[in-house]
Structures are given as structure tokens and as C-alpha cells.
């Protein structure tokens, strides 16, 4: 079954060096390693491409459909490349009670995108997370992993400006 799947027809997948590197750390044909492999691959590539999933399926010894099934089941996995900066808005209960819906709406209107989307210039992605576990400083967002707590809707404008300025600098 390991290499039985021929989906994709003619355009044969190319082995990605980054994925090959990840797979070296895991014994082949062990289903229990599938999720750690996907996590490590996403850490490296920032998302799971079709080719990466095909390559992983062969290593783990399951059909690509199963890998796709797992990748789409868990919220953590992204099938499209995210923006350069990722904003995660916490929508946990404590944040909700303290007005995280307004924070989210404010981000959405400032960026002109919906949660789950990326700005057209590929700079900023806006995501929702269930709970970041920092409820006492609610409402919370993380920007590229850095926490910002006790926000009010007005703060979003400043945070985005800072990100855009960073984007300009690196150009």
C-alpha cells in the first residue's frame, strides 16, 4: 500500500529536501509518527504542500488520502501558505466575555480580510484560536508568537501599523 497511490497522474511529485530531512528522524512505516512528522514539516515549510503530503504518505506507509484526512482534521495544519506575519486572535470564553469579538472585527476591518485569510500582499494572516490559556490578561492576541494582552479595539490599528513598518524595513 505504501506507494500505491498514483493520484496526481503525470506531474510526479518532487521530493522536497526539507521534508527528506524531517523524515530522516523517524522510522518508516510507523503510523504513530504521522502527526509529529506533519508538525515538523509545517514548522519548516510553514504549510503542508501537496508534494510534501505525498512524500510523507510514502514514508509512513499510508495512502495520501489518509494523510490528507489527518491534515484537514486538525486545526493546526495549514494547506495554503500563510502570510509573513500571523495574527492569532483568541476566542476563548474569558476573552469572549471581555470583548474579543470586537477585537477580531476590528482586525478584520483594518486588514480588509476575514479570519482565516491572508492579505493580498501576503504580509499578514489573521487566524482564530480556541484558547491560548492566558485568560487572566484577556482579551489576548499573539502576533508571530508574541503575546499582547488586555487589548481594546483601538489597539489593533497600532499593532498592524507596527507590523507594516516591519514589513517595509525588511524590503
Amino acid at each position: 500500500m505504501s506507494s500505491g497511490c498514483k493520484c496526481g497522474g503525470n506531474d510526479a511529485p518532487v521530493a522536497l529536501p526539507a521534508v527528506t530531512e524531517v523524515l530522516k528522524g523517524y522510522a518508516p512505516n510507523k503510523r504513530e509518527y504521522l502527526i509529529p512528522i506533519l508538525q515538523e514539516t509545517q514548522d519548516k515549510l510553514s504549510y503542508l504542500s501537496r508534494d510534501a503530503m505525498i512524500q510523507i504518505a510514502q514514508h509512513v506507509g499510508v495512502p495520501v488520502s489518509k494523510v490528507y484526512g489527518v491534515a484537514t482534521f486538525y486545526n493546526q495544519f495549514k494547506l495554503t501558505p500563510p502570510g509573513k506575519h500571523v495574527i492569532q486572535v483568541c476566542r476563548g470564553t474569558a476573552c469572549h466575555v471581555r470583548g474579543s469579538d470586537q477585537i477580531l472585527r476590528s482586525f478584520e476591518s483594518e486588514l480588509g480580510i476575514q479570519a482565516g485569510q491572508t492579505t493580498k500582499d501576503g504580509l499578514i494572516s489573521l487566524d482564530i484560536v480556541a484558547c491560548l490559556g492566558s485568560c487572566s490578561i484577556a482579551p489576548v492576541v499573539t502576533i508571530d508568537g508574541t503575546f499582547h494582552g488586555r487589548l481594546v479595539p483601538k489597539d489593533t490599528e497600532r499593532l498592524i501599523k507596527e507590523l507594516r513598518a516591519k514589513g517595509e524595513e525588511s524590503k
Partner: protein
Amino acid sequence: MSAMHTSKHPASKLAFNRRLTREEISSGALAKQLENLLDRNPAKTVVYVGLGTCGLASGGQRVWNRLEERKSKGEIDVVLKKTGCIGYCQQEVMVDVKKPGKPRVSFANVDVARIDKIIDSYIKGDTLPTEFVTGVSESYPEGPEFQIPADWKGVKAFKDLPYFKKQKRVVLKNCGTLDPDSIDEYIAKDGYKALTKVLDMTPRAVVDEIKASGLRGRGGGGFPTGSKWEFAFNQPGPQKYIVMNADEGDPGAFMDRSVLEGDPHRVIEGMAIGGFAIGANHGYIYCRAEYPLAIEKLERAIADARSYGLLGKNILGTNFEFDLTIKKGAGAFVCGEETALLASIEGKRGMPKPRPPFPAVQGAFNKPTVINNVETFANVPEIIRNGAAWFAAMGTPRSKGTKVFALTGKVKLSGLIEVPMGITLREIIFDVGGGILNDRGFKAAQIGGPSGGCLPTQCLETAIDYDSLIEAGAMMGSGGLVVMDDQTCMVDVARFFINFTRSESCGKCIPCREGIARLQEMLEKVVEAPETETGNMALERMKAVIDLRKTCELIRDTAACGLGQTAPNPILSTLRYFKEEYEAHIYDRKCPAGRCKSLLRYMVDPKSCIGCGICKKKCPNAAIVGEIKHAHYIVAEKCVRCGVCFEACPKKAISCS
């Protein structure tokens, strides 16, 4: 499994470069040898910075960097230490200072400017800036008596502060006082003594001890832990597993995170004891990927425990073998359900399986498996060390010990608290939590996350234990306690949870997948804007009146797993206690709390409007019309009620009804 066993972190500086022996731990010789790590009488000033996730999120790293900077310049001669979270999260960043001969004192809300003041006046000088002091954290929650210096006017000991007074710390004992990266500090505080003790016992005796303690699972259901262990103990070997459920998916809960970040060795010891009791030689820690810091602390703790011979083969020179693997969750709420969690460990989609067979009989890789929550394992070493009778003396007849709650929402002091079972809701919210934020009215307390319920004022005297909470229509859950004030709309809260469970439903069984979707539709209809009303919408709304409760009960009785069965709880409990709010939404088309946006109406007061045009520019739906320097007007049909104009107006000319 070699791939998992290599640690990514630099090796810890350990006090010993060898495997420890049973005798030196059980006799207390080692703890005595390491006692100076606890800084009872330090030679130099010690500064502790709380660098758990809350501390970091509040800017703890900047405070730490500032301290390091001034230390490297030679301005202060101190020892810097990182600690976990003491649970007073509202006041993060917390910095503790222990000067030789003075009790350890705790400063709150520290930022860079404030740390400079603390350094100049107290660390370099000798005047305590009492205005920044929270209290004296020396010997909290336990330790030798001490005297508060006479010139520290108005400074109180932690145990006399209202926030800490009613707490009873068992699980959180070391959180915020010990360095989570130091196994030596844990050993100095009698760590791993319980493990040495069980190695002299029979597995049967360990199971019996846990059974006698009356410990019940802290993850939600409240199943007796001892009985669970006994089922697995009675299964034939050779391969069994211990699993720790650290997939704390409940929105509004962070107890497990704080324990893992603040005291990782405690749960490792608990798991090893569990492994010894049921005859498992391997354990899995299933931790959320959203908790990177907790995973980091665990990885280091496991590596350190291995080098001391507390994990791995021949633990402490015996034949007992036990090792741990960390599995990172990938963000699925349903994986908190034990059979779904096991599927996820096996690399599959996290979908629950019908029980029986129970995991204790056929669990991970079809082998007998015990799954317990973080807090459950954290209780185990204390029970073994102090005896079942000590534990059973705390709490109520059917719920023993303490419970950790994440007290959040509209409460003055939010944070992590540990209280004895049987305490009332009123004591938690008004004594420990200090009352409602801005002194508004209390409306409800949401306990138990998406599977729990909302308890109103008349339940404030409810004693917190597993059974009384279920009777009141909520459940213990993992311990999220979100306080809501009179500005919170209960229909909105129910909708919030239903939206959550709908998106997190795994989709395997029909009652949960389709039923919750219907519930969500009904609630959407209830809060829909009146002017978009067309056709038979009024009829649809009435459907909610007739069907809402029936659908809830149907899901509760027929869904496949615990999550599906409890998913309607937020609606059922709000229907029970706040029926009039549903009625106001359905019949009067009003949201009494003013939270349900679509029932609101935004208006510009033409007298106050200066015509600056900011609102017009900000409006996402071009619903605002008007010329510059003339009063503007909101077109109700186009207004999406986002509230952006309300926030943006510099003259507060926009009102909301």
C-alpha cells in the same frame, strides 16, 4: 522512539553527575544537601521573575533583560532566578526579592521603570517601596515562620491576603516558588520521595492507597482514579500504557498549563507512580501544541530525570522501567475525549470510539491504558507521601482534596486558584476573586467549559463538588470558571459555546454533527436583526421556542461520546436559569444586556456630530452618509452593527440602543 528522546535544549546544570540512589532520597539526605537551593538563608540577594506564559505575555522578558543588564554592569550583585506562575496572573509581571536576613517579598505589575525603582530603593538601598508590594511570599504556602520587619508598614504576608487566604495549595504548592527548570530544587522540596516510597510497596498496595484517598479524575467526568487504575492493574500484561491528558482544550481554562510550566517534575513523578502501580513501562504526555513553553519545560524535566536515573531502565537501582514520550496535540478539542486522544496518539484522526471496551482494557495500540488529567497526576505524589487519610480529610464526603480553578472573566482578581472541595461559589468569586469587575452586578458563573453550564445568583451558595455541580446543571469540567456580569447576554454565551462545539464536532455521529448545527441555526434566528425579517422568519423563530429544548435533550441522550452528550449543556442551563432572556430576544426582539449586535440600533446624535467624517471612513459597509462639517446619518438597512463608528467617534455622538 529514539527520535523523540533527544532534547533540543542545552543540558541543565545538575548538582550531581550520576544516578541517584533510593536511600539518599528516602532518608532525606539529598533534600538536606540541596536545601540551600530553596534560599531560606541566601548569602546574596535573590531576585525571582515569574516567567510563565502570563508573565511573558505581560512583558516579563523585558523586566528580566533589564535585571540582567544592570547585573552585568556590576550595579547589583544578585542571583537571578526564573519561576513559574504563582497564580496571581492579574498582577503579572511578578517579581520576588529575597534579601539575606529579610523575608521574601513580592512585587506586582512590574515593568522596566518599576524594576529600576525597586533596584535603586530596595536592592541597592534598604527602603522597601511599599506601594509596589503585593505581600510577603516567604513560606507560602508552607514553610518556617518568619517575622515581617517592623519598618515594612502595611505589608502583609501572603497567607493573610484575601486572594490567598481561602486557598489550599496541594497541586500548586511549588508553582511560582520553585524554578521549574531545576530538578534539584524539586528534590530539595522532597521531590521524588513518593516514587522511592512506592518502589518499596507492591503495585497492589499503591492502587489501594489511591483508591482509599478518594481521588477522582480532575479532567471533567470525576471518575475515581483508583478504580481506573485497578481495572488496568487487573489486565494481563506485558505491555500497558500510562497517558497524561494535557490537551487542555476548554476555552477559558489554563490550570494544566500553569502546572506543567511551573512544576513539571510533579506530574512526571505522578505518572511514574501510575506506571509502577498498573505495570506500564511507557507513558505518553499528550500536550497541546499551543503550549510551547509547557512542552519545553517538560522536555527538559524528562531529560534531567533520566540522567538522575528517575526515568528509563532500572529506576533508582530497581527492576522498574518507565519512560515518557511527549506527543504534541494538533488543535482538536475532541482529543480531550480519551478514546479520541488515543486515536490521535496512534496518528489517526481524533475521533472517539464507542466504549466498552474501555481504554483500561483496550486503549493505546489496543493495550490496557490509563488516561488521567494533569491535575490528577499532580495529586498522586502528595497522596503517596502524606498518605490516603491526609488527602481524604480534605473536601466533602464524595469529593476529596482540592480543585484548581482558572478564575477569569469579569472578576477583579483573575488567576489560578486552588481551593478545597466544598467551598461555595460565593467564597470563590467574592472572597478570593475580590468581587465583580467595576463593582457591577453578578449575573452568572460559567463552570466546566463548553460541556458545563451557567450558574446564576441563586446558586452562589452551592458547595463546589462533582455531584452538587451536576445537580445544579453545570459540571466540574477541567476547572474553567468564567465570571459574567450584568453586561453579559446569556443567549450570546450559549451561542458562543454552540458555535465552538459545532466547529469542533468531529463529525462521526449524527446527533452531534447535525443536531448541534440545528441548535446553532435556531440561536442565529433568535438574534437575527428585525429589519431583515422576510417570509416565514417569525415562524422559524417560534420553532426555536418549540424545538430548542427537545433537540438539546435528543443530543444529550444519543450522541456517541462525552463531548456530544454534554454539548447542549450551555443551552440547557441557560434555558433553566435565564429563560426570560430568551423570551426577550424572541418576543420583544431585544437583548437586555445589549450584547447581541443585530438587535442593536446605532444612531448619530445630529447635535453632537461635528461632521468630521471619521465614522464614514471607518464604516466597512458604507452605511454612513453625510457631508463634511454636517451631521452624519446611519442607514439602518445597511448597518452591519460592527460598532466601529461607535468606537471611532471622537465626540461620542454615536449612541447605541
